[in-house]
């Protein structure tokens, strides 16, 4: 691959959008070509600068008066929540009185949902072995594999499910441990 070829592909390479062969060719070229490596570094620096600039611009936006401005534009609310609740209650009292047992069922259901939500949220964060479990289970999924070596064997430790790509110079895979 020439510098001209690589230069056209560098932005795509930088974004990880090339196919495997092109990705490999550009990576290989850039490791040996100072100009292309420099161009890649410039792309990285440009992206960093843009990110910093955007982040700074966003930080500078003053949102402190946003909601008060929205409320002001909406105008005064005609009915407060308290009044609405009171009106709803009065309406309920005359229009569709709730018997005792559905009210009790609603309370029970609400408590059960609350407990279930709390349990669901707390379990992963308070489990003492969470990190160790993740470390023990290294299960990996191989989506694609390409190589210039004579052979590559995929091994796995059944206990920890750790995957090994064993590269061998012997195409009969007799080199695998």
């Amino acid at each position, binding site marked *: 691959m020439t510098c001209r070829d690589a230069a056209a592909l560098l932005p795509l390479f930088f974004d990880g959008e090339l196919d495997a062969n092109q990705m490999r060719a550009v990576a290989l070229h850039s490791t040996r070509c100072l100009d292309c490596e420099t161009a890649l570094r410039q792309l990285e620096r440009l992206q960093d600068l843009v990110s910093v600039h955007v982040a700074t611009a966003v930080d500078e936006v003053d949102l402190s008066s946003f909601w008060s401005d929205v409320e002001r534009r909406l105008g005064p609310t005609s009915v407060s929540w308290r009044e609405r609740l009171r009106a709803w209650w009065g309406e309920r009292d005359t229009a569709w009185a709730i018997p005792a047992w559905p009210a009790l069922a609603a309370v029970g259901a609400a408590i059960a949902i609350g407990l279930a939500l709390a349990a669901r949220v707390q379990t992963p964060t308070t489990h003492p072995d969470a990190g160790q479990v993740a470390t023990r289970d290294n299960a990996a999924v191989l989506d694609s*594999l390409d190589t210039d070596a004579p052979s590559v064997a995929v091994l796995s*430790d059944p*206990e920890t499910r750790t995957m090994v790509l064993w590269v061998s110079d012997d195409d009969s895979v007799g080199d695998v441990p």
Partner: protein
Amino acid sequence: MSGAGLRPLAMFGGVVVLATAVAAQVVEPAASPSAGRVEVRVGAVLASNASKEFDTRLAALHRQFNALFPYSSYRLVKEERQQVRWGERVGFDIPGGRYVVVIPKEYKNERVAMKVMVLEGARPIVDTAVSLRNHGTFLVAGPREQEGVLILSIGAETVP
């Protein structure tokens, strides 16, 4: 039950429902890990039968090494960690003339999907797309040489 007796009970029920709704908002899960950065770590381990020394820094991989490789000595030659944004590439120089390029693509189903290339001199010895459990590690080993074998441990974890 009279209407007067029902009212406090139903009101209590309403309060509990409201409290539950508020709690559900409060305990909303944190932002998706794919919105943050990812830390890629690459370690180079020299495995041989020259001694029976096991580098204590490799304690987390002790069981895997013993189960997968027939060597008695494991020495961590180099370890490097770099944080990148999703989709960015990160390169690692490995002793012995190897170069590792990793591009974390996305975080999906608690897995980090990434493209990994291992170059040995001018030869790409591994070019793979792999989905690895968050905080997980996979290994690239070989080719076998006279003094042993170089094992690369490649892992990734999301950074909030």
